[in-house]
């Protein structure tokens, strides 16, 4: 009886394993992403970039594996439901059960952070994209890298520069409890103090916050020059709605993640004008790679790429492609190639120092008449910073 049940269970599990296709001729590349749940509004920006890349590579005859052969790409995608715990299980499954050749990154800092130990355990290199973490950098992992320049300590310095150039003397800081926002705040507070910028309101809130009225009433009463919202997409939307209702009149209003996503501007039209956000890329320059990416994305998806997330995802696959062309699929050689190489990307040359991008400067974007412009650093500006004037 018990033997029978045991055998039955084992064979049921074996059947589950057989359901996964056996080794195909394609290069199998897996990832999980927040297709549903709290972070879902941000995910299409990244999925689109991955799909566009796979399509282009396959049209070129496939992915170049160490100069020896070219194989077509097969993408394997799972929904982690915005739950970092699920991402851990899925990356484990991708490596041990689906036996993928390469990995792409999920969306967001919590998910990158969560899967870092899976990557270390299996010594499987993966280039990150829409994430950065000082905490992870300090642990010196060997199999994950961040394409973005926006690591919290560098961001704090850049933010203070931007605030000073805008003549902001006092701010309110509203911080999402999620790691990226909190890390930003941790480095921003001392930097503001050193620059003599007064923090009039300092309020944290949970990721699933429903009503910001209580916080914004405080902000309104304090009359700061600037509001720094260290927010994610969902709460960025909430902020615009409530700040408009309460009537926040600060001339500088910043939201960390969200406004760079295409639908955001469409949703609020004029009300979002003047909002500053994180980003260091813009198609308005004369870089040929950038222009080609922008045109191809717009043609395929009938909308602009997300200036932050689509760009980071694209940079991550540009680097992966170049590293694989040099090193093939061997994990050790690939790790070596990524950590020592210099890569051509739409944000210019990228080279890694430990986990972080050692080259690209940190920047900010502003929504002006429904378009995103780089307003910082000054030497990359596509438009000067303008004060936010009301909510239209």
């Amino acid at each position: 009886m018990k033997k029978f049940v045991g055998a039955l269970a084992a064979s049921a599990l074996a059947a589950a394993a057989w359901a996964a296709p056996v080794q195909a001729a394609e290069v199998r590349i897996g990832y999980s992403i927040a297709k549903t749940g709290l972070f879902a509004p941000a995910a299409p920006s990244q999925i689109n970039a991955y799909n566009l890349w796979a399509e282009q590579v396959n049209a070129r005859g496939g992915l170049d594996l160490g100069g020896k052969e070219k194989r077509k790409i097969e993408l394997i995608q799972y929904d982690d439901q915005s739950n970092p715990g699920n991402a851990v299980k899925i990356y484990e499954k991708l490596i041990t059960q689906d036996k993928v050749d390469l990995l792409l990154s999920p969306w967001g800092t919590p998910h990158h952070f969560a899967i870092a130990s899976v990557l270390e355990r299996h010594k499987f290199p993966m280039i990150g994209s829409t994430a950065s973490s000082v905490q992870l950098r300090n642990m010196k992992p060997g199999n994950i890298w961040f394409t973005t320049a926006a690591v919290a300590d560098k961001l704090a310095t850049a933010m203070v520069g931007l605030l000073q150039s805008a003549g902001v003397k006092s701010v309110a800081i509203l911080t999402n409890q999620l790691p990226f926002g909190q890390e930003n705040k941790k480095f921003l507070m001392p930097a503001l103090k050193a620059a003599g910028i007064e923090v009039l309101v300092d309020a944290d809130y949970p990721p699933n916050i429903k009503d910001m009225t209580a916080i914004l009433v405080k902000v309104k009463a304090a009359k700061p020059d600037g509001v720094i919202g260290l927010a994610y997409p969902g709460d960025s939307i909430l902020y615009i709605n409530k700040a408009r209702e309460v009537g926040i009149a600060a001339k500088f209003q910043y939201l960390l993640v969200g406004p760079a996503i295409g639908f955001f501007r469409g949703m609020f039209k004029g009300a979002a004008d003047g909002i500053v956000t994180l980003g260091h890329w813009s198609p308005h320059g004369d870089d040929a790679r950038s222009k080609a990416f922008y045109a191809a994305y717009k043609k395929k998806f009938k909308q602009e790429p997300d200036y932050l997330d689509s760009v980071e995802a694209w940079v991550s696959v540009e680097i992966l492609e170049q590293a694989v062309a040099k090193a093939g699929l061997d994990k050790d050689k690939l790790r070596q190639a990524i950590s020592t190489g210099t890569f051509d990307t739409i944000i210019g040359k990228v080279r890694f120092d430990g986990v972080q991008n050692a080259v690209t400067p940190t920047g900010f974007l502003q929504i002006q008449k429904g378009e995103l412009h780089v307003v910082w650093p000054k030497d990359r500006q596509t438009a000067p910073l303008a004060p936010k004037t009301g909510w239209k």
Partner: protein
Amino acid sequence: MRFATPRETVPLLLVAAIAAILPLLGSDYYLGVGFALFGWIALAQSWTIVSGLAGYISLGHVVFAGIGGYVLVLTWGAVPVWAGAVLGALAAGLFALLVGLPVLRVRGPYFVILTFGLAEFAKYVVINIENALGRFGRLILGGPPVETLYWAMAAAALAGTLAVIVTRRVRLGAGLAAVREDELAAETIGVPTVRFKLLAFALSAVLPGFVGALFVLRTGYFEPAQAFDPVISFTIVTMAIIGGSEDARGPVFGALFLVVLSELLWSNFPQVYMIILGALLIGFVLFAPNGVAGLLDRRRPSGGARAAA
């Protein structure tokens, strides 16, 4: 000492047989599935002690696993790994003793929603503590290999199964059964209900604390919202109700069934999996309140003498 009855040998041998077979399949994947299966068996057996035997249905059992996991990451680097896991188990038991007295005064459905609220409360408290400490998720790099974790969890599953079997045989088990049938009457005939309930609550918390610590070692990642995820509590209850919570067989049957189902569905059809879970819960409550084990007994009434009841 009475001889072991089938309702005692079946679950023990089943767990031992699975533990012996899975490593022979030679893949990390099967070890991972086995690890999860044994984890659920250990959790569901623990739950059975207070919720099956005493009838105090806990909808917040994840709180003990969460505490175990949290203690492990707090002590990470300061004490050996195994000590961290044991401390996690002890902390969970201690927590049960502390909150048990007021919480166990609440009865019936109010106990059910109270345990749920308690687990959520603990989750948000830990979230705020971590936030105040400036920790936004914790990573554990270089934990024990999966084989080690697999055998540790198999041991936990066996321990949980044994705990239910032994509890049913001793005076505590008879007392808890009396509490479940009629608490007032039990008190009148001299059963020390308060002490027994508290003891059962603490017993049912220790092993989940250990399991929670192993969960964290397995993922290498701790984040309060994951560690205290209410879906874990819900899954435990569903497993026990599907399998039956009268004796040690039920949790093994229930966990086995749901783990196989979950392996087939979770990654590609997560919502379908949850819908089936919900539907099974409704179906079993309405039509087979004693679970699969109860159905087996009904078909073949020679299943051995019922202890206690």
